[in-house]
């Protein structure tokens, strides 16, 4: 479980004080996948570095499974796994030796057996004796993920795990992440891939130096767009939109082409009344559905609103 309270990181640069992370507070439950979304340079990697005790926060505290950063650094490092933005593997060493090194550094019991298990799991067994320098980007990424999970950490920080991978390997990685979740591990996933975040994450946080929004994708969608209903008609008259808008439970109404978009609180109860009203007005309804908004739309709107505020 990850608890973050007012985490802030300032960097002194030649041009002045740079605020990389500003007053970040959030909580990630045990066994959850948390998607940390944000544009490049938003401070995601800095946050991960603070949580893995690689950087000290300027202000604020955080704890991983009850261990505080800055105080219980050894305990935290032993319990978290980190996939860095760049794999950072040793090119002249074999895949097996790369993993064995980290098995020993993490104090894994019977590291050879554990390394072999992960090499099989990541489909790298046949190439275990080859120098990593000869590996493709996907193979290196799989090896780096194996390295992060080798010591069975409670919490995994994965920075762009599927970035630049072909669909086959990306799927293998996503399946592996879900398998880790099924084992009860907490996963903190930094990604730009919104489709992946939508598929994998229980909760997401949208971040640009500060936390702009954090919730489940479904709740964020509701908060941003409400429950927008789409009524497709054979044709629309402007008067109908006005009449429907005057219904007490309709908060917004607009038309686009042959479609009428209505914002309501409880579509299950209120849609039949709208349908009745439309029929009375002489409208011919082709179908009624709920508008779906992608995570990309949510993300872009939140980021744009934050930029506009700034």
């Amino acid at each position, binding site marked *: 479980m990850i608890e973050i309270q007012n985490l802030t990181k300032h960097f002194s640069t030649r041009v002045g004080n740079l605020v990389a992370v500003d007053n970040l507070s959030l909580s990630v439950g045990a066994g959850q996948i948390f998607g940390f979304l944000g544009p490049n340079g938003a401070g995601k990697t800095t946050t991960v570095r603070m949580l893995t005790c690689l950087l000290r926060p300027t202000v604020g505290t955080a704890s991983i499974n009850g261990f505080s950063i800055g105080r219980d650094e050894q305990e935290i490092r032993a319990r978290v796994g980190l996939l860095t933005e760049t794999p*950072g593997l040793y090119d*002249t060493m074999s895949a097996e030796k790369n993993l064995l090194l980290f098995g*020993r550094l993490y104090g894994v019991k019977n590291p050879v057996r554990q390394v072999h298990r992960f090499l099989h799991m990541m489909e790298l067994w046949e190439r275990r004796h080859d120098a990593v320098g000869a590996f493709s980007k996907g193979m290196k990424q799989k090896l780096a993920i194996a390295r992060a999970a080798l010591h069975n950490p409670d919490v995994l920080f994965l920075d762009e795990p599927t970035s630049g991978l072909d669909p086959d390997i990306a799927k293998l990685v996503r399946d592996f992440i879900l398998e880790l979740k099924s084992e009860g591990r907490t996963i903190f996933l930094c990604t730009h891939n919104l489709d992946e975040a939508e598929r994998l994450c229980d909760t997401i946080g949208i971040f640009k130096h500060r936390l702009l929004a954090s919730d489940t994708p479904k709740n964020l969608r509701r908060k941003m767009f409400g429950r927008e209903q789409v009524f497709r008609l054979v044709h629309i008259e402007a008067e109908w939109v006005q009449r429907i808008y005057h219904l007490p439970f309709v908060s917004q109404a607009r038309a686009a082409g042959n479609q009428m978009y209505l914002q309501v609180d409880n579509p299950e109860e209120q849609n039949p009344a709208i349908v009745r009203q439309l029929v009375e007005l002489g409208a011919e309804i082709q179908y009624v559905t709920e508008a779906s908004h992608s995570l990309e739309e949510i993300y872009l709107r939140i980021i744009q609103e934050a930029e506009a505020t700034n």
Partner: protein
Amino acid sequence: MNARRIYAVMDKEWTLTFHNWLVWVAILLPPAALAALLLCVCHQIHFVLDYVSQLLTQNKITQLKTDEWSAWLMDYFLMFFVALPAANATRFAAGGIIADKASRSLEPQLATPLTTGEFIFGKVLAAVVPPVFAAMAACGIFLHVTRSWGITQCHLLGNTGNWSCRAAIFTLTLLLTNLLALSGFIIASRKTEARGTSLTATSFAQFARFFPPACIYWGYKRQIAGATWALEIIGLLLLANAVLFLFSQALFQRETILFKWK
């Protein structure tokens, strides 16, 4: 300090460094060449002193302390072996940290339970052990051959066949090399550009070549050269090593080393 983690760091450094056979040549050739050169010099001196001894027995010359001459030379020659591994070890220590920075492999390592002390100890020891053992092996051969020629004494450490003398040479070499390797590590941990770092660290290590002969010169001049003097130098080096090790930990900024490019 966890010995298993220190050994893991050392093993990694050796695997990365010694996969190229030319590195072995770089480690073994200088001590072998030095031993060969000094043996040639000793061989010549051995014959000259032999001839001088004959002149002494024939009373053609009255007094010449041949043993003192050879002991004095042995002091200097042994110090060449003491100073020899410093340059390679410094370069290794500096190169190890620079390579980690360049390959971005430092971050995953520092995210493990490896402490700063273990990391530095492992890296420096990995850099120090091969050159020191190569130099000591060459020194052992040199001593064996010179003893067979009857050159058995040195002023500083007494009989070269004694374990105390050999242990003192080994300790001096190890401590001096370690001191310089630690300096190389500190320089490299605070710089990023590989060529500049290698140059700075190696230039720094060159000072090591002057240190042992300078100590002996000073010892002779003040007439204190001897076993006690050697022990005092060992003590001083030990203290300097401890101070520099603590200093290297304080200067090793886990934070900035990851992203600050100097």
